[in-house]
């Protein structure tokens, strides 16, 4: 109770520093779209190379767009729970990449190959959704994304039993486009709302 003001201030600062500019949503959207397009063209295992690029791109864009407007603040270190979540997602990611590599082997029968492809399709879908959650989980304004995620998981489950080929890719492609639209709107609003401030002369 007594720390309400401090907690609220911290929440507002985190929101302003990390999410209000729409850059994470834009990058997650681009990542989803590129990954899904690659998957649909049979080059899904290459999507891992985009993952290390996301934080670099994000920091580069923030230096040019965000920090001159709202300033730069290094946030306090978070608890171990978040670190564990990130490592867990990375572990699943690596496992997914290994499965993809194996699925390209010639020694497999057609049925085995299809089964691995199907498993990999859902594994990758879960990975990208997991990554989206990691990037966007602390943004109170994107609560509707949680609903969207719930719908995707539901649709995914239905499709899992019907064995629709590539259906998950299309759903996540649409999800990526939604992220890009939302990110772009947030970015435009941010640029209009916050003018560039100069450092001390």
């Amino acid at each position, binding site marked *: 109770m*007594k720390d309400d*003001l*401090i907690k609220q*201030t*911290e929440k507002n*600062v985190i929101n302003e520093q990390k999410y209000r500019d729409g850059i994470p949503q834009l990058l997650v959207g681009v990542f989803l779209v590129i990954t899904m397009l690659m998957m649909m063209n049979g080059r899904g295992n290459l999507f891992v190379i985009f993952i290390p690029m996301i934080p670099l791109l994000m920091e580069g864009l923030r230096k040019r767009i965000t*920090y*001159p*407007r*709202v*300033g*730069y*603040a*290094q*946030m*306090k*270190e978070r608890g171990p729970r978040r670190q564990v979540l990130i490592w867990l997602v990375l572990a699943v990611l690596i496992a997914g990449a290994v499965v993809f590599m194996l699925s390209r082997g010639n020694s497999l029968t057609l049925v085995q190959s299809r089964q691995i492809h199907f498993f990999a399709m859902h594994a990758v879908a879960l990975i990208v959704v997991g990554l989206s959650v990691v990037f966007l989980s602390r943004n109170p304004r994107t609560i509707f994304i949680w609903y969207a995620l719930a719908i995707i998981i539901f649709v995914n489950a239905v499709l899992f039993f019907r064995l629709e080929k590539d259906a998950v890719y299309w759903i996540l492609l649409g999800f990526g486009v939604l992220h890009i639209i939302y990110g772009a709107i947030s970015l435009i609003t941010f640029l209009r709302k*916050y003018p560039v*401030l*100069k*450092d*001390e*002369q």
Partner: protein
Amino acid sequence: MSSEERISTEISFEEIDRLIHEPARLNIMLYLYVVEKADFVYLVHQTGLTRGNLSVHLQKLEQNGYVEIMKEFVNRMPHTLIRLTQRGRTAFEDYRDSILNLLRTVKDA
């Protein structure tokens, strides 16, 4: 109000750190408390103070050892980073407790 309670309130007033109690400096301390460190633009944006005004308040806080100011150059442009020291962090927490105690005393009186 009994004389005992009056004494208690007076003691609480004595405990308040006047350096932090000034609204602009309290605002600066609050926004530095929730981060590890921040630049000058962050404080200008969050507090709404002018650059000159902010500089004066930061100097006072620095003189008392509450903040640490680090100057650097980024792409040949001056860049100022400000961090709340451990002393400043403790002082802010003590101030918060003092104010809460004082308000509690006033409410109970």
